[in-house]
């Protein structure tokens, strides 16, 4: 399982990186989301994978490490906040710069919202 999980983390990260390197804001934002999925799963795995062992007292005999879960939770919330912000920023930039290229300069043509 660990190997498959690690592959999934790697694939998510790779997909995220590839998209982050695109030239338009929207794919980049999606890439950032995938990247944060990958990273969150990575961080989550730092407490090791445990099946049927939720860290709720009384629910399981040998609960999993709860700390990475708390960390990932914080990370999820923060990355949600950041995503919301960057989405709006991308929107604003597209409106102001008249294109949605990450550099604000459309290699082909101007687009007007």
């Amino acid at each position, binding site marked *: 399982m660990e190997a498959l999980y690690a592959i999934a983390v790697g694939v998510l990260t790779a997909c995220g990186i590839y998209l982050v390197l695109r030239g338009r804001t929207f794919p980049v934002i999606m890439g950032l989301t995938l990247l944060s999925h990958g990273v969150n799963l990575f961080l989550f795995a730092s407490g090791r994978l445990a*099946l*049927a062992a*939720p860290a*709720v007292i009384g*629910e*399981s005999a040998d609960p999993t490490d709860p700390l990475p879960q708390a960390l990932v939770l914080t990370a999820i919330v923060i990355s949600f906040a950041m995503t919301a912000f960057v989405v709006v920023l991308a929107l604003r930039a597209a409106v102001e710069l008249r294109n949605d290229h990450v550099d604000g300069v459309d290699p082909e043509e101007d687009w007007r919202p």
Partner: protein
Amino acid sequence: MTATVLPIALALFSLSLLLNLYRLLRGPDIVDRILGLDTLNVNAIAVIVLGGIYMDSSLIFEAALLIALMGFVSTVAMTKYLVRGDVIE
């Protein structure tokens, strides 16, 4: 008997998930994809519930509840987007 049936049910739902993802990836229209995702959500609820029985814990049933709520809202949002070009107006 439940114990015997459970893996079968899970396998059948897995098959469902696969078919849903197929529709999601295949399209052809965006509405097909939305439909695929919506069904994926619904089937995921069942998978979670069956997983709960399997692990003898209803701890993650809130997740199923949330999938129901969130899946609906996101389907509504997407279809609204298609029809109105905007979600909230």
